[in-house]
């Protein structure tokens, strides 16, 4: 009797890329729900638009490169990139800004280098940095959370949609009246004005127990999603722990030595994209270091550089640039942190 030939091994692999990417995207759903609760439908609109834009650009790029479109898209990496960009961007952005971010992420960061697996830079962060530099005003327009006691004008849905599609608010609404500085902005200003953080926190209703109001909740749910991924073995502990250590250790030391005049570890942890970066962004396997020790160095570098940018740099949140800088260092890190092979000296 004849049989089919095949190459060993003959057991089925447990996972696939598509399943992994989908699970990571789903881990952000609780955070997205909370985000919507505090900041309105903008996040959901963003997620939908970003997914559509990323998938669209990816399909275009695959078609241009002559690669099978549907098979490659089934790895769901474009969807995940879209979701991450949506979380990174401010919730109310003109649609062309959002689409530019997705285009930069998919085309510039991924396909120019050969597609998934070959990109040295994190696509979501490259997209974010691209629009941060190209559209600085739009990118600094963050709406405050919808918490009752904050005194500001809440635009209505129709007004928000108008802004999204035309880039301008209807007459009568001033940008200054709607947007507010983010907690990170406030801290920078406070530090410059030599205010003590305690005074700032009690003075401004923007601050919750740890970081910014609303933001702490979102951060917590992002961390929950990250914890789920750790439990499932989809990400490993090295990068998240290292990123948080790289940010929180200097932050703690700084807070101690300046006697509370700068953001402490709790603040940094729950502000900006710290938790998102630790669990979802820095853990992008393609652009991260690959050996265990290398990942610790990589993660710590991201956390540390982000903290440095937050403290002394020109941008309130330095995560994107920190990630991109460490991406550039990855080949060097990998070269020097290769594990010792069993049976060899090195």
């Amino acid at each position, binding site marked *: 009797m004849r*049989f089919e030939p095949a190459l060993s091994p*003959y057991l089925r692999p447990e996972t696939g890329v598509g399943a992994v990417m989908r699970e990571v995207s789903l881990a952000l759903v609780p955070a997205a729900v909370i985000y919507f609760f505090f900041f309105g439908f903008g996040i959901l609109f963003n997620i939908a638009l970003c997914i559509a834009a990323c998938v669209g650009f990816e399909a275009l790029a695959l078609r241009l490169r002559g690669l099978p479109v549907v098979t490659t898209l089934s790895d769901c990496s474009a969807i995940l990139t879209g979701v991450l960009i949506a979380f990174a961007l401010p919730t109310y952005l003109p649609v062309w800004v959002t689409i530019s971010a997705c285009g930069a992420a998919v085309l510039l960061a991924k396909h120019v280098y050969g597609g998934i697996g070959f990109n040295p830079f994190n696509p979501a962060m490259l997209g974010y940095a691209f629009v941060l530099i190209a559209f600085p005003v739009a990118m600094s327009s963050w709406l405050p959370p919808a918490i009752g006691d904050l005194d500001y004008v809440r635009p209505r849905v129709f007004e928000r949609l108008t802004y999204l599609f035309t880039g301008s608010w209807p007459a009568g609404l001033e940008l200054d009246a709607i947007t507010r500085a983010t907690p990170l902005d406030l801290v920078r200003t406070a530090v410059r004005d030599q205010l003590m953080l305690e005074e700032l926190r009690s003075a401004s209703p923007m601050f919750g127990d740890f970081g910014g109001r609303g933001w702490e909740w979102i951060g917590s749910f992002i961390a929950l999603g990250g914890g789920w991924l750790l439990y499932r073995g989809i990400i490993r502990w090295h990068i998240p722990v290292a990123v948080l250590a790289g940010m929180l250790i200097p932050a703690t030391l700084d807070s101690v030595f300046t006697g509370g005049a700068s953001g402490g570890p709790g603040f940094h942890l729950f502000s900006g994209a710290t938790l998102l970066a630790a669990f979802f962004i820095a853990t992008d396997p393609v652009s991260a270091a690959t050996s265990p020790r290398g990942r610790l160095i990589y993660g710590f570098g991201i956390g540390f550089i982000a903290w440095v940018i937050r403290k002394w740099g020109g941008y309130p949140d330095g995560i994107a640039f920190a990630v991109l800088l460490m991406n550039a260092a990855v080949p060097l890190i990998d070269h020097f942190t290769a594990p010792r092979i069993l049976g060899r000296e090195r």
Partner: protein
Amino acid sequence: MTSAPTENLHRLPGGLRLPGFKAQSATGEIRDVPIPKTLVLPVRQHAGSAAQPIVSVGDRVMRGQPIARAEGDFSTGVHASSSGTVVAIESRPIPGREAVEAACIIIETDGRDELWDALAPIANPLAATPDALLEAIGKAGIVGLGGAAFPTLAKLRHAVDAGVDTLILNGVECEPYISCDDALMRNQPVEILFGTRIMLTALGLRQCAIGIESDKPEAWAAFTEAASIEGDDRVQLVAIPTVYPSGGEDQLVYLLTGREVPSGGFPSDVGALVHNVGTAAAVADLALTGTPLISRIVTVTGEGITKPGNYRVRLGTPIADVAAFAGGYTEHAKRLIMGGPMTGVALTDDALPVTKACNCLIATGPAVRTSFEPERPCIRCGECARICPVRLQPQQLLRAHRYGAGDTLDGLGLIDCIECGCCDLVCPSHIPLTQSFRDAKLARRIDVYERERAERARERFERRQEREQTRADAQAAETKRLKQGANPDAIAEILARKRGAPDGDDD
């Protein structure tokens, strides 16, 4: 005999917990497959040089009679598995990773299974000299029965020369589906222990550890009981955690002793000698009855077989006969794997014979992975490096092999890859990593060979150039000397001599 606590074990730096799939075949029973009409015995069923046939077509042979002799130091012989007549010595397809044909001795059995009368048990095996023992093992065609089929004589001789002190018996059997060692340990623990004692005593080894995987409690119990008959203070039972590939030779040495077998080396380089439990049983059988290696236990299993279990098979039996005795195939049988599901070979034809290396036959359905899944680019997730038992980085090896940096493969440890297959199982992109590494190893061997050849040609060319240059220089010097003209005084002298000899007598 004592048992060692598991805390003393070292930890493998990787490996996977795999589903066992052993329940169906590990009943503890061993059934004998009837002698087939035709035995097909390849002259090379082992790693090393093929044996030389010492019978001719038409010869009558008996069970246990040697029919092929070892050729050189790294070889072993072949014996007739039953009595009959040699009907042909010709090239036939043999089981292996590539579809090749090789010389086989074909015996038509007469059904009488008569024993060869010149079989020689070892007298006083526990007091035998190493040389006597090695000679007997060499003549008996014994090879490692864990699947690698390394000639046992060569291995023991190397070990004696290297001065090993620790014998390790491999009862781990870590690969899923396979349970032949388990069956042997449950049925013949006394023989295994006896064979162990022979090897220990005759080779002057200090100690022995028998590694048994923790999923084999019956085997453990059988050994503990057997110790009361054949116990020895030098032998220790050790439970090994059920992690694949703990049963790999280098891995087991590391687990039990913490010593790392050097890259490209052998366990004997770190003072250890590893044998499969089946090999020990074969040595015991040889010592007691003089029987050479003519049969082995084969696990026949999988959803494609009606009666999975362990069967004792005469070497040379066609696989089809074994499958038929095991109840035949079910409708699920799409693939026939010789060996385990991680390192085995998918055979295309069941007319192939059972050889010394065949420890398991899995008839399985399409539930097993196909090779046609879309392979995606590597996403550098690093899972493969996390579970590699040798601490290699398969993602780097793949990149170096596929994208042209072949010369970095040596530094990345390509030759240390044991081809266990763990990396394939965890890769989310479904890349056939193990096969790529097999290809890469061959490409490296060819590249090294070609470079050595080129280097040799270059040396010969340069030496030749030097030689030609020296010759040309000497030639030029000579010509120059001649062209310069002879010494006028010398010419005058010659002329004077000539004038002094008018009969034209030249000097």
